[in-house]
């Protein structure tokens, strides 16, 4: 008995620790001022945590990429004054100093205002998207009723910033690359939104904390009721993940910055801190999208097993977020790049139809929620069929002329 009690007590103390800390700090303030300071503290900690995550994400990316390629990755940067060198943990700060001190070259033909505004706007919009994700049971900065719509509204505005960057550099390559980036972002926004709709439909609300609540509980005692463990949820998660890869210009879709073709895409004319801002915005976007993926499909801050409830919810959210980010890096290390026309064809002819069909599957799933006993298997079978059959058909049509070949030999 006391074990459960122990779980409950320690769990709850840790659980509400951040909130109690904050109230401790701002408790003595008058009412309106406390609201302001509370939100400022919230924003401050969020930026600090996500900033550190960005810093060590760049290091993690280079070290994991290195380890996959049988080399150590950066391990030479010493901690400044005590020049103790272990695993290159000071590397992000060295990169930061380098980015700040590097000369910021602005081409004279460039449109100064837009050239400066582009990275700032991009970073502003991607930080805005972070505000609405529920990091823990009590850790939600903005409680909007239409939080999902807010998230994608801020996300959609990043295209504007990419266009500004491409246009303001007045360079043939960056304009061409900006056009490509826009085409890619727009064509992958549709499957991204469509893959989110089933999760909202099943959870019955656009508010993210409500969606996480809907994924609580465990069926048969151990299987968590996350959306990803349902046929439509798994398909939706895969489509969401692939579109998130494309939205944040990551590996198989990093066409705009394809070094082998258009040098550095719309970033060609940026250097110094503005270049670092672009990277920061890309990583923030990546964190935001994977945070959204975790919230919608992987059960947000829900614990995977009942007896693990005592570990605080924000830890679970952190673990899931990090594992998703590692998959981002893992994919970057393995896959080559798609060509421009293949990329858009993949979006319009494969992801969008699958996402639409997935809507149907989710509708069927929610209507048949009442079935029980043997009907459960029928329900699962039909749902699985609704997911797999279109996948194989569309997959076969997509890779029509492409297949491994056998070769003949001349003796």
């Amino acid at each position: 008995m006391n074990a459960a009690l122990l779980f409950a007590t320690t769990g709850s103390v840790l659980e509400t620790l951040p909130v109690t800390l904050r109230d401790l700090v701002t408790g003595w303030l008058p009412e309106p001022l406390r609201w302001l300071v509370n939100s400022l503290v919230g924003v401050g900690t969020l930026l600090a945590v996500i900033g550190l995550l960005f810093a060590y994400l760049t290091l993690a990316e280079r070290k994991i990429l290195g380890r996959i390629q049988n080399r150590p990755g950066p391990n030479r940067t010493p901690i400044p004054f005590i020049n103790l060198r272990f695993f290159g943990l000071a590397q992000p700060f060295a990169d930061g100093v380098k980015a700040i001190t590097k000369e910021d070259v602005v081409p004279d033909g460039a449109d100064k205002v837009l050239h400066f505004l582009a990275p700032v706007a991009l970073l502003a919009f991607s930080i805005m998207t972070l505000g609405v994700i529920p990091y823990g049971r009590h850790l939600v900065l903005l409680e909007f009723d239409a939080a999902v719509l807010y998230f994608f509204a801020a996300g959609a505005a990043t295209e504007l910033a990419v266009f500004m960057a491409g246009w303001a550099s007045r360079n043939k390559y960056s304009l061409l690359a900006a056009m490509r980036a826009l085409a890619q972002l727009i064509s992958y926004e549709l499957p991204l939104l469509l893959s989110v709709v089933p999760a909202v439909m099943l959870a019955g609300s656009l508010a993210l904390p409500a969606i996480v609540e809907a994924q609580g509980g465990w069926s048969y005692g151990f299987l968590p009721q996350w959306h990803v463990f349902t046929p439509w949820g798994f398909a939706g998660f895969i489509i969401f993940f692939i579109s998130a890869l494309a939205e944040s210009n990551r590996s198989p879709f990093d066409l705009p910055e394809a070094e082998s073709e258009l040098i550095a895409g719309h970033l060609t004319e940026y250097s110094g801190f503005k270049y670092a801002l672009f990277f920061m915005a890309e990583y923030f976007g990546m964190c935001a999208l994977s945070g959204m993926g975790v919230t919608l499909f992987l059960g947000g801050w829900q614990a995977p097993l009942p007896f693990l409830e005592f570990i605080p919810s924000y830890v679970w959210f952190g673990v899931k977020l990090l594992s998703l980010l590692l998959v981002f890096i893992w994919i970057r290390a393995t896959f080559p790049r798609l060509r421009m026309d293949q990329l858009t064809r993949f979006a319009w002819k494969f992801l969008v139809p699958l996402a639409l069909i997935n809507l149907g599957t989710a509708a069927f799933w929610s209507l048949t929620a009442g079935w029980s006993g043997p009907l459960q298997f029928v329900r699962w079978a039909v749902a699985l069929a609704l997911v797999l059959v279109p996948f194989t058909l569309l997959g076969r049509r997509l890779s029509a002329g492409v297949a491994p070949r056998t070769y003949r030999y001349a003796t």
Partner: protein
Amino acid sequence: MIPLLLIAGLTLATAAVALALRNLIHSALLLIASWAGIAAFYLWAGAEFVAFAQVLVYVGAVSMVVLFAVLLTRRSRDDISVAIDSPARGIAALLTGGAVLGVLFGAVISSPLGAPAAGARPSLSVKELGLQLMGPHAAALLIVGVLLTVALLGAVVIAAGDRTDAAERKPEGNP
């Protein structure tokens, strides 16, 4: 009250400057800023869903259409005639502008706004909004849906038009 004036002032300012600028891209971007101003209005009024929808639709997508249109149709800088070439045209412009202003002003005055409702704003959650849309306003929603699909299909057909000559543009398979 002050935030209302502030947002109104900003939106009008950006829209006015957008008209005055010679650089098309700058004016397009300022136009987009004014749309964001309108979204700020909705937010101030407490209608979050509409505000986010406005940002998503206008600042996200329509802005792209405007910018692409500006880019693709730009022939050369000097063909935008700015000066009024004849006095008659100038007077005609003033007249139409005045008429439109009058109509707008009349509508604003006659609308039963009354004193700003100091009472509780109607707490409108997304769920009720959905029910309303699917309930009494379902017909309007479906009509708009059909309209959009027709527009989309039209765009595809026109784009397909380009694709046919692109097909024959592709060389007959190099040897």
